[in-house]
């Protein structure tokens, strides 16, 4: 009787994988966007997910964050079974994500966007009292705005920002609070070469305990910021390995690197 709680507490103490998926499937009608995906990522590990369009990469993210419930399967986050949790509960446990198409609050200022992100993972989300000027969360938000080089535009409405700036803000929102694991969904899409360099810098200078999974088509970005790669194809995991192994794998080249993406 006492064995299970003991194992649970041990698991959440840090010996468990950051993320563990067992037999996760997601059906849209008859279409299996994900079928029987089993995946585990260690704390602090940086993993790339590759695959052609429709391989199920974004659906995988949506299942992990809880935007969609998986049709079958189990998801554990730092040892805790979060399969039935709504998104906000997973986020409050240290999971973060960015979106492929920027998903921001266009009617609010840059600073307010980041402030909301910081507030979302703290207490007093329903507070009716305005924050003081020396509020810790306001400072945290300003720090994050600076970290993604947006200090100059922090009072501008997000709807007025350039595309690249919105992508940077997208990342700032994912870094709010105390993230333990982040899902990046094509963060480099549409960025200029300079902005890509900034992005690589931001990713490689994240604290070592923060692991992430990154979906990225740009090999220059993807292979420089990950230590392991998972290849997906038609909703299934097709191959896993080190970046150089995957890059030189003939099957992978046949399927993905040579398959119209060059």
């Amino acid at each position, binding site marked *: 009787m006492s064995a299970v709680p003991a194992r649970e507490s041990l698991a959440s103490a840090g010996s468990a994988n950051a993320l563990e998926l067992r037999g996760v499937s997601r059906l849209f009608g008859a279409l299996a966007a994900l079928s029987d995906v089993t995946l585990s990522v260690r704390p602090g590990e940086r993993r790339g997910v590759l695959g052609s369009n429709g391989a199920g990469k974004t659906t995988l993210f949506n299942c992990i*964050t809880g935007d969609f419930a998986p049709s079958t399967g189990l998801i554990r986050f730092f040892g805790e079974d979060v399969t039935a949790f709504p*998104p906000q509960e997973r986020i409050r446990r240290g999971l973060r994500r960015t979106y492929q198409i920027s*998903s921001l*609050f266009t009617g609010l200022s840059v600073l307010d966007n980041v402030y*909301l992100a910081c*507030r979302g993972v703290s207490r007093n*989300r329903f507070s009716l*009292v*305005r924050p003081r000027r020396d509020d810790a969360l306001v400072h945290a938000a300003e720090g994050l705005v600076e970290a993604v080089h947006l200090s100059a535009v922090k*009072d501008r409405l997000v709807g007025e920002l350039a595309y690249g700036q919105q992508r940077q803000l997208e990342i700032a929102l994912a870094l709010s609070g105390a993230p333990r694991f982040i899902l990046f969904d094509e963060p480099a899409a549409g960025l200029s070469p300079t902005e890509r360099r900034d992005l690589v810098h931001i990713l490689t200078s994240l604290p070592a305990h923060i692991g992430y999974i990154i979906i990225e088509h740009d090999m220059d970005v993807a292979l420089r910021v990950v230590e392991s790669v998972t290849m997906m194809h038609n909703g299934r995991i097709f191959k896993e390995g080190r970046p150089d192994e995957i890059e030189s794998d003939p099957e992978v080249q046949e399927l993905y690197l040579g398959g119209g993406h060059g």
Partner: protein
Amino acid sequence: MAIADLNLEQRARTREGFPAWLARRGTAFWVVAVLLLVMPAIASPFWLVQIFAYSMILGLVALGLMFLAGYGGIVSLAQMTVAACAGYLVAILGDSAISQISLHWPWWMAAPVAILVATLFGTLSGALSVRTEGIYTIMITLAIASAFYYLALQNYTIFNGFSGFNGIKPPVFLGVDWGQNLPFYYLTLACSALAYGAVIYVSRAPFGLALQGTRDNPRRMAALGFDVVAHRIAAYAFASFIAACAGVLLVWYQRQISPGTAGVGPVVDMLIIAVVGGLSRPIGPFIGALVYVLLRTFSLDMLEGVGLDGKRYQLLIGLGFLVIVLFSPDGLIGIWQRLRERYRKGSEAREAGMRIGGGSP
């Protein structure tokens, strides 16, 4: 300029002193504030109560709708129903001419309980409709409003059916009869100013910001750790509280309440008032309400003056609504902002022209 104004507001997020906030107000704010304060010296009792106090009461009901729609993206038609519910409760719990139903509680018990129960009612109807979006929210809240209307119309044991309640008297306390024109005007003015200030304040507090976040992007809000449904229900509660206070004032103003107060007509009128005034700022609903009351009051004479049937005043309101929605999606507030912007651009251009001209001799 509108954008610059918005940015000013964005920067004011952190807490500032009330004097600092006052100092940032423009001329228009001060003119309106002083005018409203000295109104009893200028206006006749008819204008004071039938026009201004009544407008402010309707403006309060619509203010709740503006809060929901402008900040939360929720269009609820049940606002007037919440106000009518509070009005009915004041009549049922307190004193009225229907003494076999009224419980004759003193006003200081009846009014707070009425506000509390009506707020609860508004929150529950919000919880019912919260998982829907857009047109479906409108449909559900319209269904709730109709249900309340028919309940009040057909129930005689509690709501006294078609005739409702009359003989409801505003309270007398602190030695003042609050039903008199002057005290009643200042009472509604104070309530309106408080609610207006509260909406502005809350809109920049974490709760209000989060509500605007759920309006712009509910999915991302959940991905930031917010419970979107709970936030929307809390917004319903806040808006219902404002509507409930307005309902108490309304029943004191009318001194009677009947199912017609909660009919489908008045319910939709609230939406018209809020949209005509403008959903982007809390002052919008008050302007919309003033225009509505003026049209309602004077269009009869105007129409008869040009030889039309005076009962067609709804036609004027409808036409005005159409024109405003067609030409200015953000209501009269939007027209005002655009005029001001044009005026500023014009004066800047004139100044520039004068500088160039001044250099030549």
